[in-house]
C-alpha cells in the first residue's frame, strides 16, 4: 500500500504554489494545499472560482503554469492524464462521462483492467482471469447497478450514469480520488443516496471533492478548503471554516445563513 510506503499520516496529495494562466487571465494563483492520506477533503467556492481548473491541473488534463503537484511525495507535475491515472489518481467529471455505446459491465471492466495488470494486449482474451470481471461485478454490486449490467451506458438514467462514473473511479483502485460535483443536477433524495455511496465506497481512500450542497459538505468532510477567484482563502475543519471571518466576507456574504 502507498500509505505504508509514505508513512502514516503523510500527505497523499500536495500542491505547492500551483498557478494556471490562460493569456492574461489568471485562473489559479499560488494554490498551496496538503491533503493527508485517507482524508475526506471538500473544495468549495462560488461558480468560476477555479475549482474545476484545479482538478484539471491535478489530474493531468492541463499542465500548470507554475508550481508543483506531488502524489504520495512523488512529483507528478505536468504528467499526461493516463500516466497520472497509473500513479494512483482517478477523477470523475461534472457531466456524466462514460463509454456510451458499451455495456455497463464493459465500462467497469475497462476501468478495472489497469488494476488487473492488463495493458493493450491483443493476443489474449479479456474474459480469462486477471480478476477484472470479478472486480467489475463487485463494483456493480456496491452501486446497485447489477440489473443494468448488459445495458448500454448511454441508455441509463442520469443518476445511474453518475453512479456508473463513480464506479469507474472505484474500479481503478486509485488511492486518491477527485470527484467534481458528483451530485450536480440530482434531486434531494438522489443527492443523499449518492453521498452515502461515496462515503461508503471511498472509505480508506483520499478524497478531494467539489460539492455545492453545504449540508453534505459540512457533514462529511474532515477538512474544507474555500476557493475564491483562483485563490485558496481558507483551509480547515468544518468548525473553523464556519467561524472564519474571511470566508464569511468573501464567499458566504457575511451572514452565511446556510451554515447555521
Amino acid at each position, binding site marked *: 500500500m502507498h500509505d505504508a510506503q509514505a508513512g502514516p499520516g503523510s500527505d497523499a496529495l500536495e500542491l505547492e504554489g500551483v498557478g494556471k494562466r490562460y493569456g492574461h487571465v489568471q485562473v489559479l494563483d499560488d494554490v498551496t494545499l496538503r491533503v493527508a492520506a485517507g482524508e475526506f477533503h471538500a473544495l468549495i467556492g462560488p461558480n468560476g472560482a477555479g475549482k474545476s481548473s484545479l482538478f484539471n491541473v491535478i489530474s493531468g488534463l492541463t499542465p500548470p503554469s507554475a508550481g508543483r503537484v506531488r502524489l504520495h511525495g512523488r512529483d507528478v507535475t505536468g504528467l499526461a492524464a493516463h500516466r497520472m491515472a497509473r500513479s494512483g489518481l482517478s477523477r470523475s467529471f461534472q457531466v456524466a462521462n462514460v463509454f456510451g455505446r458499451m455495456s455497463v459491465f464493459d465500462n467497469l471492466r475497462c476501468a478495472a483492467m489497469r488494476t488487473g495488470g492488463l495493458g*493493450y494486449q491483443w493476443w489474449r482474451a479479456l474474459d480469462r482471469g486477471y480478476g477484472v470481471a470479478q472486480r467489475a461485478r463487485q463494483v456493480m454490486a456496491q452501486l446497485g447497478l447489477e440489473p443494468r449490467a448488459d445495458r448500454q451506458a448511454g441508455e441509463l438514467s442520469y443518476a445511474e450514469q453518475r453512479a456508473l462514473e463513480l464506479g469507474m473511479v472505484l474500479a481503478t483502485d486509485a488511492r486518491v480520488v477527485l470527484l467534481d460535483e458528483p451530485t450536480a443536477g440530482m434531486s434531494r433524495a438522489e443527492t443523499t443516496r449518492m453521498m452515502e455511496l461515496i462515503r461508503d465506497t471511498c472509505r480508506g481512500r483520499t478524497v478531494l471533492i467539489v460539492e455545492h450542497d453545504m449540508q453534505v459538505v459540512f457533514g462529511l468532510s474532515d477538512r474544507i478548503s474555500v476557493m475564491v477567484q483562483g485563490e485558496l482563502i481558507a483551509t480547515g475543519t468544518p468548525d473553523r471554516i464556519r467561524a472564519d471571518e474571511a470566508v464569511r466576507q468573501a464567499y458566504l456574504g457575511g451572514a452565511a445563513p446556510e451554515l447555521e
Partner: protein
Amino acid sequence: MGLAVGLALLALAPLAFGGGFQLGLMSQMCAMALFALSYNLLLGQTGMLSFGHAVYAGLGGYAVIHLLRAVESGMLVFPVVLLPVAGGLAGAGFAALIGYPTTRRGGTPFAMISLAVGELVHAAAGVLPEWFGGEGGLTADRTAGPAFAAGLWPEWSLGSDLHVYYLTAAWTVAGALAIHALGRTPLLKLANAVRDNPQRVAFIGYDPHRVRYLMLTMAGFFAGVAGGLMALNLEIASADSLGALRSGAVLLAVVVGGSGLFLGPVAGAVVVTFFSVALSRHTGAWQLYLGLVFAAVVLVLPGGLAGGARDAARLVARRELAGWLRPRGWAAAGALGGCAGLSLAIELAYGRVHGAGGPAAVSWFGLTLDPSAALPWAAAGALLAPGAVILFRGRGRAAASPGECDA
C-alpha cells in the same frame, strides 16, 4: 452454427456459380469483404474515419507482386499460398511506420491526415516507376512458383480461377475469424472506449494515442492481406489500388453494410463489388446507381443493410412484421415504381448523351428503346411521378400511425 453455414456457402458456391467471370467476381467479393472488415476495425471499433485506407491494401498488393516476381526469377522460393501474409506484413509495417504521428489525434484531424497520406503515397507511386511500375502497374504470374511447397499437391497450380477462389475464400475466413477473435481482447475493449470517449480512457490509465496506433497497425495488417489477395486475383498491382477511389470504395462498403454489426462490412463489400463489377457490364451508369444506393442507405437505414436486417429480424421475432409493413405497403410500391422510372430515365439520358451521332438503342430489362423518341420518356415520367407522390404520402401516413417501431 452461423460459421458452419457460412463455410458451407463459400465451399459450395462454385457448384452454382462455376463460370470464370462468376468465380472472379466471388474472389473479388471475398477480398473486398476482408478489406472492409479491416476498415471497420478503425471506423466501427475505434471511431477513426480514414480516407486513405487503400494505402495499406495497395502496399500489401505490391509486396505480393514483388515477391511473386522474385519467385518467378528464381531468386526466392516461397509457397505462393502464403504470400498474402507477406502482404499483411507490408500493410502493418507501413502502418506502424507512418501511424505514430498520424494517430496522435482522432476525429477530423486523423481523417484529414489519412487523406493526405493517401494522396502522398499515390503520388509517390507515380514518381517511383521502378518500384511501382508507373502507369501500367506491375504484373506477375501467380503460377510462377509452387502453390504450397515443392512437390506438395502439384496439381494445385493457382492457374485456375477455382483454385484462386478457394485460396481467397480460405484467407478471408481466416482473417474474419481473427478479427472476430480480436473483439474479445483488452485492446478492442479499449478501442471501443476510445471511440466513445477518448478523454475518459486517459483517466482509467490508458493512452488513447497508443490505442489508435495499435488499431491502425492491426487494420493495416488485414488490409494488406486483402490487398495481397486482390493482387493475386488480378496478377497486377497498380497505383490505382493505392488511390482515393479505392479508399472511398471501402468506406462506402462499410457504411452501406453497417459498421455496428460484425457482418455489416461483409454485406456492404458484397453489394459494392456486385455494383462495380457485375452491374458495370450492363450499364455505363453503374456509379450513379452506387451513389444512389449509398444515399438511400444513409437516409433510410442509418444502421446500414446489416442494421436494417437486424431490425427486421426483431420485428419477425416479435411477430410485428406484418403490422409494421401494412402502413408502408403503399410507400414500398411507390418506391419500387419510382426506382423503375428513375432507372429508365437514367438509362435513356445516358444513351442520349453517349450515343451521340447515331440512334443509340437503349436496352432496359430486355426492352430495346430509342432515347430520342417521346414514348419511353413519357413512360419513365409516368412511373416516376406517381411513384414519388405515393412514396412521400405513404411515408407521412406511416410516420403518423401509432404503431411506430422503435427498434
